[in-house]
């Protein structure tokens, strides 16, 4: 399959895929909470654009509903909710990573390459022109996980979790024209509930241990040091 043989909208979807990966890198590199949330919103917007394009180019109109859900939840509601939380908890400027940022970036690059390597055999199963994006989606998922591991603050970890979900959603959209509607609605609803639950948990954690730094949970260890 040659790149030049793809239609323009398919090329555009591939470009959007690359941009989504880039936004994942940006999420990993952001050190300020508010810009982190904004970047997450941007990732949602890119996802929305990719879904709309996919829906219109493939004629699978149920994807429009997914796109609308993405727009509503991931671009507006969840970022707005998180932002409100951050403002109320007053952690707008906290800078918190574990390990050097450049090292994390290198790890993310290596993860991308690794997911490409892993996906190579799977890729042959899909017949879609956009199947090359499976590697990208896997990379987005893995980078989301890396973000959960390397961040100290619970809010950033939640964003990492959400961006993992973005990766899964993207994989479903571009490689198989989306999951069945029921599943998709369910997942969207889950994410929404998760966002609200996390919000409640943040307050609980903070009133419990006096901080949102999850390293403080180390106290709960079984073994006394």
């Amino acid at each position, binding site marked *: 399959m040659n790149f030049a043989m793809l239609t323009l909208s398919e090329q555009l979807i591939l470009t959007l895929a690359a941009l989504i990966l880039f936004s994942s890198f940006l999420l990993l590199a952001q050190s300020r909470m508010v810009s982190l949330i904004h970047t997450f919103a941007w990732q949602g917007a890119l996802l929305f654009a990719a879904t709309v394009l996919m829906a219109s180019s493939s004629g699978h109109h149920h994807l429009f509903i997914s796109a609308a859900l993405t727009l509503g939840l991931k671009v507006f509601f969840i970022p707005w909710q998180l932002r409100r939380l951050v403002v109320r908890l007053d952690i707008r400027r906290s800078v918190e990573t574990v390990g*050097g940022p450049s*090292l994390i970036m290198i790890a993310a690059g290596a993860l991308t*390459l690794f997911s*490409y*390597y892993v996906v*190579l055999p799977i890729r042959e199963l899909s017949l879609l022109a956009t199947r090359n994006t499976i590697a990208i989606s896997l990379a987005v998922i893995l980078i989301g996980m890396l973000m959960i591991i390397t961040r100290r603050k619970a809010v950033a970890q939640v964003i990492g979790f959400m961006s993992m979900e973005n990766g899964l959603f993207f994989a479903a959209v571009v490689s198989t024209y989306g999951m069945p509607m029921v599943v998709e609605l369910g997942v969207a609803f889950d994410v929404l509930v998760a966002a609200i639950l996390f919000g409640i948990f943040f307050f609980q954690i903070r009133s419990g241990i006096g901080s949102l730094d999850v390293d403080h949970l180390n106290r709960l260890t079984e073994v006394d040091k």
Partner: protein
Amino acid sequence: MPLPIAQLAVVLALCSALLPPLFYRFRHLYKTLAFILLGLAGISAVFAGASALILRQAEQIILPVGLPWLRSHFALDPLAGFFLAIVGLITSVVAFYGPAYCREYEEDGQPLPPLTIFSGLFVSGMFLLTLAADAFSFMVSWELMSISSYFLVVYQHHRAENRSAAFIYLLMAQVGGLCILLGFGVLAGFGGGFAFSAMASAQLSPGWETIAFLLAFVGFGMKAGVVPLHVWLPQAHPVAPSHISALMSGVMLKVAVYGFIRFSYSLLGNFHWQWGVLVLIVGAASALLGVLYALMQHDLKRLLAYHSVENIGIIYIGLGLSMIFAGTGHPSLAALGLVAALYHCLNHALFKSLLFLGAGAVLQRSKQHDMEKMGGLIHRMPFTAGCFLIGCISISALPPFNGFVSEWLTFQAALQGPVLESGVLGSLIPVAAAVLALTGALAAACFVKVFGVVFLGLPRSVQAAAAVEASYGMRFAQAVLALCCLGFGVMPTWTVGVLSGISELLLHQGLPEATASGGLWLTPISPAAASYGAPMVLLGLALAWLITWLWFHPQRRRTPTRIAPPWDCGFGPLNARMQYTATAFSMPIRRIFSPVWPHKEELLPADAEQPERYSLQVGDWAWQKIYLPLGQLLLAAAKRAAMIQGGNIRVYLAYSFFTLLFILWVLV
């Protein structure tokens, strides 16, 4: 014909080593004659090597010496000829440089005979090594080279740091030698003979092939100084006399690369691409860490020694690319990588020797090792400064000098990564190329620092202010190398054409495309893919210069140049303490890459004698994290083992008794 001349070179070098014991009373005689013999040996080696390389012929001779069942085989093929020529060239240049440089030792009352003897042995060891065609003579010449260079490192043995550096050097050289010996052992076991021709025909299983390769990689890498086997290098090179440092850094490391190429290309031959990946990664790490560590050094020669690690890394990047391409069935690209690596061997020998000779001249005249105490030397040593500048430009890989050409070829080889089937490899290789680019740019920063702090600005010590120009012999040696740097930078097409003979020998594939567009253009893949017209670039530069100069020269009369004190934004009179120091120059880089070095930065409070002052200590992770723990482990193990040394005579007798019993049991 070339082989007898090469033999003559060996004999001449050995003669120069034998002079002091023979004519112990006539000091002036052997002092001058030894260097003349060494120079003649070098020139004949260049002649022999170059003719073997250009004529592309291989000769072999079996001498009736050696072990009873193994006569010594010596051979001269293009690969050996190339390295023989490099060794010879630097040796002959050093012979011009040496007499004046050694005068300093004489004035200090150091004995000259050991220096002369071991220089001769060292050079003849390297000559023999390139010529050796069986494992036995190879190892004998290898040890001759290692041990004589040990004595050269320890030459000024009244300093404690020289002794410890030499000890580490000897230790690592022996461990490396052991690995190489084992590697040869594997090949000889399967090939049924110690001659290289028997080893080359050995049929090995892939597992044994990889074991032999790894042994050779570690053994030769130990001598070549790849990360993390490099720790002896920055300690040993700075303490040797400068012309010996030039030989060690410029040539001995190349001889180790020669051994690696000989072992893996001509004896093993059947490449696995995984080896190439290993070599590529180790090479990239060496290049990057070498230059980063070099940036933090203030001792001029130690800085240059770390740059040797960097350049060996660049050579290994070329070799790694070549092995990857060879292992995946792209022989013409493999040839490109190999030629790039070989070209960089030549270039590094030239500019690193030039820089070490220049550093030696600076050290001798300013009596300083520390860059922070030099400065302004361009006014007092203009000739040395000019040659050193050429060396700096060459090592920073800037056109139109020679360092650029080999890095450019390496880039071109790396850009062919996408031809590989595996996308992962295909994208790893350009990243290695980006590391190479970072290395080159950091090297440029480092040499701006070196040249700016040592030669420009105001003198930072009384001795630096009183320095005088180096003597004629030393200047001549530097001029020859500087001209070579320019020559090999401007005539890459011819050089690549000659070097492709070696790749034809080793990979049965030359680089016909590279020289296809005429002598002016270097086109490694095809004219459309990439081209570099080095002579035209030089011409263009000269033309642009000429036009600019012709344009502005007439204005000189109208607007005369006025000499005035420096402006410095109107601040008060300038003094040497207000200049940027080497430490200050590298501060931004230290801050950006700070996890790379174990460093301690502190402000020492003022006391009765000295005002408040700044102290910075930069170490080496490899030393602190690998070698020190290893050394402690060994010491602890040795302490355990020392329990058997009871000190009681009856215990020792019992040992002998049990040994006797054991031997009898084995024999029966």
